[in-house]
């Protein structure tokens, strides 16, 4: 890429932060994943082909960095890739991730939606994040999370349906 990197941070930074918060819960882990995503991206930027879809690329990097954050905190030798990553993220959230459920005081409006997202099963939560926030095609989501394209599509749609029900119950 020949364009200034800062334009990508400006344009895609908020989307990547929402993806990180959806996957790890809003808090220190999501902040770490965001920071490491953009540091990795900065390293790779000059070699990145001009025709790259930058947002989709950043979301894929964010997935890997989110898994790294969890793996490092888990301090255990864990298998990597696809379904194993989802299992790792699943165990993390069930085990009580650092900062999950807390949002900065200046962003009270965000708390409700993140609580609703956090309540989803891990695979649904991840598929909703990568599809509806990150805009990734289902084939790529399947590659990142293991399983088939159809399963990724179903998980995203079940996840959104659950969010919708919750929305209906909220006055």
């Amino acid at each position, binding site marked *: *890429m*020949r*364009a*200034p*990197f*800062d*334009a990508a*941070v*400006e344009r895609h*930074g*908020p*989307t990547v*932060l*929402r993806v990180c*918060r*959806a996957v790890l819960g809003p808090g220190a882990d999501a*902040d770490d994943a*965001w*920071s490491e995503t*953009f*540091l990795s991206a*900065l*390293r790779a*930027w*000059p070699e990145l082909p001009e025709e790259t879809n930058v947002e989709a690329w950043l979301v894929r990097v964010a997935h890997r960095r989110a898994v790294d954050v969890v793996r490092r905190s888990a301090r255990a030798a864990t298998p990597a890739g696809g379904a194993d990553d989802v299992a790792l993220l699943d165990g993390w959230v069930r085990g009580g991730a650092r900062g999950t459920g807390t949002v*900065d005081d*200046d*962003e009270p*409006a*965000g708390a409700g*939606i*993140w609580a609703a*997202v956090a309540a989803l099963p891990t695979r649904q939560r991840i598929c*909703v994040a990568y599809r*509806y*926030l990150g805009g990734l095609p289902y084939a790529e989501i399947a590659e990142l999370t293991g399983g088939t394209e159809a399963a990724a599509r179903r998980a995203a749609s079940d996840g*959104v*349906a659950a*969010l*919708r029900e919750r*929305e*209906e119950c909220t006055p």
Partner: protein
Amino acid sequence: MTDRAMTDRATSMLRAAPADTAGLRERLARDAEREGLVDVLFRAVDSPIGALVLAATGRGLVYVAFEVEDERAVLDMLASRIGPRVLRAQGRSRALDAAAAQIDEYLTGRRREFDLPLDTRLATGFRGEVQRHLTEVAYGRTATYKQLAAGLDRPGAVRAVGTACATNPLPLVWPCHRILRTDGGLGGYRGGLEAKRRLLAMESAG
């Protein structure tokens, strides 16, 4: 409400969830600077002559832009001439803090000369020679384009000297605002003639 509309409502709530990245961007700039991953760090600062953009590399201050310039065009130029790892550092930064402090001191009448590490790679060729020569004209003094050309043993290059002043990458630090026309006219200024007028008035008052 239709199923589809409810889906859209749920996903648009997600997409609209607040995501303030200001603090994270400061942290990114700090980490990137520490790891030597940046080509150019830049920062917007307020000043008595309008907002300025200061840009620095690991070697020093490399470019000063004025409010009248299009920030995006400036960043594009820096990316293509220096490198695409261009990052905003609105918080603390080793490369920018000294430059920001000295420019503020100068513009508020507390400094007459700059003592800063500079990256002069944007000052090339004869123009660069002219631009480096600008510091010969001291605070509160002025010179003409013609005098500057003569001083460089190029008496016929008055127009080229004018172009060099107009393209000076380090205005204020390299004081191209002190160069006037032989007839006393202001000539030009990348930051606009009003800024040039104010700088000259400030220096002649001090």
